[in-house]
């Protein structure tokens, strides 16, 4: 049904301003991800290209065929596509387990083939094993921690096996490249693992931050709900009792009883009104806006009612105003605006907010005051006077011909500070 959907949801409003912070933080997270991904993918592609060039030059030196060079280049560059893809999987898959079997096999197929093909190129003992080692190193970040040691061990065995089977292994080690080999074995997997871990950490922190802000919203809702329950529950209980009493009294038709019933019903009515006032107050207290925003709203609302409105504020005012000051001045703006709205004849409103040496001033002028309108002076004006007096300020009103002026004055907060 359409109408039921139109009812208020009772959700506690969440300021749209809160989303600004979430935006910057999600942008930072995206940036961090690209940095992580590009560094892992970049390092692996760089190492694969270096290895491909070295193996190609080995083939050239051995006076091998051009097709052999082509095969090696294709295999190594193909491996780099797989390693870039595997790095991409880290975005959501850190520590989540092996990728789908087809993906795992696809990513490992070309490196494994490179491993086999380079067995017959003397001296390719280390470079031939690089594609497999790099791909396994990236997978280390994806697989569960418990699998990591066994995969590392399997990779080491494959490197050693390549060295044992490859005919050029002895000369390779003679040239003292063993140190470089050990560096590679340590450096590659640890770099990838640390990058992946940092990325994972950042996403975890972001999740925690999101959860804590959700929790704050939930807590606020709960507080609101319990306040609401206190107000409504209390009043409704008394209302139900009084109504029951009135019902009983009306059943007994004596003059006294009827008077008592009438009294009970009057009480029910005033209790219901009280509950409504308190509930509205509760909802209104949730909204806190700056004085500047409130003035802008006043202009919008008045202009919606076809009353041209001019608002002038001193720029430094809003910054200087404490919460209490802007709350009081806000009340004055609301009271004045409501009164102006009621006299349908205003054609011009001027609102000025300025400070002098001793005080903050809010002046609101309007025209279109008809004698009849003064029959209903704003009931809130007296309340406003009392609140300003309590804060050391004052409210002055002046009516001349058909114009009305309200002047709110508060002692300057800067003077108090000195």
């Amino acid at each position, binding site marked *: 049904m359409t109408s039921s959907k139109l009812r*208020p949801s009772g*959700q506690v*409003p969440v300021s*749209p301003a809160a989303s600004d912070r979430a935006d910057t933080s999600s942008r930072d997270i995206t940036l961090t991800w690209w940095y992580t991904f590009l560094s892992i993918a970049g390092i692996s592609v760089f190492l694969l290209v270096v290895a491909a060039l070295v193996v190609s030059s080995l083939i050239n030196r051995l006076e091998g065929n051009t097709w052999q060079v082509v095969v090696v280049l294709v295999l190594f560059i193909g491996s780099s596509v797989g390693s870039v893809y595997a790095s991409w999987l880290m975005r959501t898959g850190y520590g989540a387990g092996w990728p789908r079997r087809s993906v795992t096999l696809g990513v490992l197929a070309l490196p494994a083939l490179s491993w086999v093909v380079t067995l017959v190129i003397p001296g390719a003992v280390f470079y031939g094993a690089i594609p497999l080692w790099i791909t396994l190193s990236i997978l280390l970040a994806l697989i569960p921690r418990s699998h990591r040691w066994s995969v590392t061990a399997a990779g080491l065995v494959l490197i050693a096996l390549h060295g044992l089977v490859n005919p050029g292994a002895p000369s390779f080690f003679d040239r003292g490249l063993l140190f470089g080999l050990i560096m590679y074995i340590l450096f590659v997997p640890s770099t990838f693992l640390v990058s992946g871990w940092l990325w994972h950490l950042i996403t975890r922190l972001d999740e925690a931050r999101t959860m804590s802000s959700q929790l704050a919203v939930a807590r606020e809702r709960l507080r609101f709900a319990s306040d609401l329950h206190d107000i409504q529950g209390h009043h409704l209980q008394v209302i139900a009792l009084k109504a029951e009493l009135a019902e009983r009294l009306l059943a007994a038709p004596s003059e006294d009883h009827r008077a008592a019933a009438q009294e009970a019903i009057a009480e029910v009515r005033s209790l219901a*009104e009280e509950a409504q006032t308190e509930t509205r107050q509760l909802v*209104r207290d949730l909204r806190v806006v700056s004085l500047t925003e409130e003035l802008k709203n006043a202009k919008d609302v008045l202009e919606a009612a076809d009353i041209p409105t001019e608002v002038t504020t001193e720029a430094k005012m809003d910054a200087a105003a404490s919460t209490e000051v802007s709350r009081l001045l806000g009340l004055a703006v*609301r009271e004045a605006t409501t009164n102006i709205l009621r006299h*349908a004849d205003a054609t011009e409103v001027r609102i000025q907010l300025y400070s002098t040496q001793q005080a903050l001033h809010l002046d609101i002028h309007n025209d279109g005051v008809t004698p009849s309108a003064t029959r209903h002076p704003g009931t809130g004006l007296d309340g406003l006077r009392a609140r300003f007096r309590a804060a050391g300020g004052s409210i002055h009103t002046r009516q001349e011909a058909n114009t009305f002026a309200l002047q709110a004055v508060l002692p300057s907060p800067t003077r108090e500070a000195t």
Partner: protein
Amino acid sequence: MIRVLIADDETMIRTAMETLLGMEEDIEILPGVADGRAAVRAAQELQPDVCILDLEMPELDGVEAAQEIARTVATKVIICTRHARPGVLRRALAEKVAGFVPKSTPVERLADVIREVMAGRRYVDPDIAATALTAAQCPLTDRELDVLRAGRDAPTVAQIADQLNLAQGTVRNYLSTAMQKLGVSTRTEASQYAWEQGWI
């Protein structure tokens, strides 16, 4: 006699209001209606002096009905609402609504408001005015608001696009910028939020 028409889909409240207002000597109650469309028809037919429209009604909401009524009938409109959403007052004033009162207004006072409105004055409840003045500023553009408004009734993007004569991609763009501005993750939430703020 001031001839008054009341439109409210909550029948209990409407009949109670009608009975209580009918007790005033200078007020005559016309047969009430339960939705915005019927309110417009009844106003055109009966030419009441004052229409009291509930804000949340099926078919047309109070402000929309007020707009239609103002276009065709010389009658004063008072909008009555249970829950004053911040931006609604602005919309109502722009439609030349003469009065805006919460449903909690005692009927005696409502009768005074009717008299004030008949005397050519406007009546805006101070609480409602306060709510409007402490509203969050709407960060959305007119187009984004159109899309969110259509999104309240249309279940799919295709239907919104159809309703507004826009391309689906354009609708998606408006929805996603609106969602981003409001800091919500679904378009339903965005529509709901915009509605709660009274922007649509």
